[in-house]
């Protein structure tokens, strides 16, 4: 039998396996391409018919013929950044509480300690539970719990940047913590035996060694959180007041691109307002695409994966 038969047989065998995977990838990618083609095809007229200037303007007064969606873009960015500014440090702090957990200290007792351990045990569980809390439930509860507090404390209507940012921070928190945990836990684990032997505590190892070496993971988690915050519809719709303006303070209302889309779909058909809906969609898609691609790239670069070992 000729030698090439070996190769032929092998490749035949290998082809069978990936066929299903190949098919699946084909289906998935077709869906993605279709999505982009559709949204862009519908968004183009908005830009083309009136020129980009009409849509990319600072005034939204549909009755006077102003269809600018820049205030919404600014609102989206501002809200997402505020939520991130709240959630990211919180996520880092929570990680400091979750990751460096050694075995229970034997011999030390007391109610305070037990309580603290209970809290530490509860935390990872709570974070996972939070991923299951539906957005609409957050928004609904915040409408009755948080907005009165904000109104009483800071004045205004309570439907404002601050309320929305607070709840949005809660929404993006678990995702960020989980991404950070996945990236940092293995590093810490690898460091632990040696580092502990040097007399560092786990927390010190995490703070002084792991965090500085994992900047990319931390940044990637922030970008992912940002994308999620930009893309959320219901919370800004229910809590941010929806005024089409650039907010001047924490207690002022704003309108995000997503909420704008939800509001416009509800009430407009045809015409410039309706077209601006697709323009907003395309804009949102653009911003989120950038954030998400950047995040993944960073996350992948920072993976501790090694090139093929060339050890002998």
């Amino acid at each position, binding site marked *: 039998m000729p030698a090439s038969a070996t190769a032929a047989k092998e490749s035949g*065998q290998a082809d069978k*396996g*990936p066929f299903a*995977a*190949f*098919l*699946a*990838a084909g*289906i*998935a*990618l077709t*869906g*993605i391409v*279709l*999505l*982009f083609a*559709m*949204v862009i095809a*519908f968004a183009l007229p908005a830009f083309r018919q009136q020129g980009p200037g009409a849509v990319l303007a600072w005034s939204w007064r549909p009755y006077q013929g102003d269809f600018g969606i820049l205030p919404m873009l600014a609102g989206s960015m501002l809200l997402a950044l505020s939520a991130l500014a709240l959630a990211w440090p919180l996520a880092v*702090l*929570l990680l*400091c*509480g979750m990751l460096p957990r050694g075995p229970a200290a034997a011999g030390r007792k007391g109610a305070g300690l037990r309580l*603290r351990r209970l*809290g530490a045990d509860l*935390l990872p569980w*709570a974070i*996972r*539970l*939070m*991923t*299951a*809390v*539906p*957005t*609409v*439930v957050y928004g*609904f*509860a915040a409408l009755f*719990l948080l907005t009165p507090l904000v109104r009483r404390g800071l004045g205004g209507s309570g439907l404002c940047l601050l309320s929305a940012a607070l709840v949005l921070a809660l929404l993006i*928190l678990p995702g960020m913590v989980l991404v950070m945990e996945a990236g940092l836990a293995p590093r810490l684990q690898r460091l632990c035996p040696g580092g502990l032997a040097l007399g560092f505590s786990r*927390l*010190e190892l995490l*703070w*002084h060694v792991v965090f500085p070496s994992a900047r990319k993971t931390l940044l990637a988690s922030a970008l992912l959180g940002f*994308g999620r915050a930009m*893309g959320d*519809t*219901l919370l800004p719709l229910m809590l941010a007041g929806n005024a089409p303006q650039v907010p001047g303070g924490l207690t002022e209302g704003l309108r995000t691109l*997503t909420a704008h889309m*939800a509001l416009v*779909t509800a009430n407009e058909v045809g015409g410039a307002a309706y077209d601006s809906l*697709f323009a907003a969609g395309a804009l949102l*898609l653009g911003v*989120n*695409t950038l*954030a*998400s*691609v950047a995040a993944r790239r960073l996350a992948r670069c920072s993976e501790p994966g090694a090139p093929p*070992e060339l050890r002998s």
Partner: protein
Amino acid sequence: MSRARASNGAARPAPRNRLRGLPLLRFASRFAAVALLGCLGALFAFLLFKGGPVLDRELLFGNTPSLDAILGLRPVWDGIWPALAGTLCLVLLTLCLALFPGIGCGVYLAEYAGPRAKALAGAAVDVLAGVPSIVMGLFGFTVILFLRRSFLPEANTCLFLASACLALLVLPVLIVSTREALEAVPRDLRLCAAALGLSRAARLRHVLLPVAARGIWSGVILALGRSAEDTAVIMLTGVVANAGLPAGLGAKFEALPFAIYYITAQYQSQEELARAFGASLVLLLLAGGLMLLASRLASGYRRRWAGGKA
């Protein structure tokens, strides 16, 4: 205790005394944990307090007999059973649609794709991961408009369309978690399986996938939660305020998250509002329950794969 430590520190010269122990960080992280748990506690307590009292048979079925309602013999009014059933159907259908392409594409990216294909498809998936749900809903809506104007004038927003859009929304979660779980399988284990003479397909099926199962399952669970809770997608693709039990793939349907949103927006009496609280609680329990079930299944599967004789 602290006094003893201080005197200890004084006895030994400690050059970086200021940094040792990171007391401020320790305190802040503890504070953050307590604050978060407090927030969550307040949220759940509030929902329980408001929604607990209405959490009964009537919340689900209104005044229709339970069995008739469950079997769909009689329509339910003033109850959230149709919405609950709709959400369940939606989640199941979404998973059916998304599991094969999601996990398959993840396997392809991790195991079979060449470097070029990997970069291209990987970027496409990253882009998809960034698509906000309302844009996904908009996409579904435009697809229907397009179909109606071209070759399928009878097309309409429906359960199938909503599931398909949701499936597309959760696809990147599945793909990325599958891919990362597979890529995280230790190289040694791969080599060892190869050295034992297992064929490529056998390696994937009997070693790599089971080892990666935990990561894949966590992706499935996330996808599950996402499809149960998402409102923005279905708002534009076929959910309605009143439709009864889902009547088929081509029919409009009700769903819990939309029902909550709708009641908050339109309630006319305090009783109706109380129903929204009840529905919130039910949705929370449903999402939590689905997650619990999925992780149970996952660990059961793991035990069966790893354990015992035969």
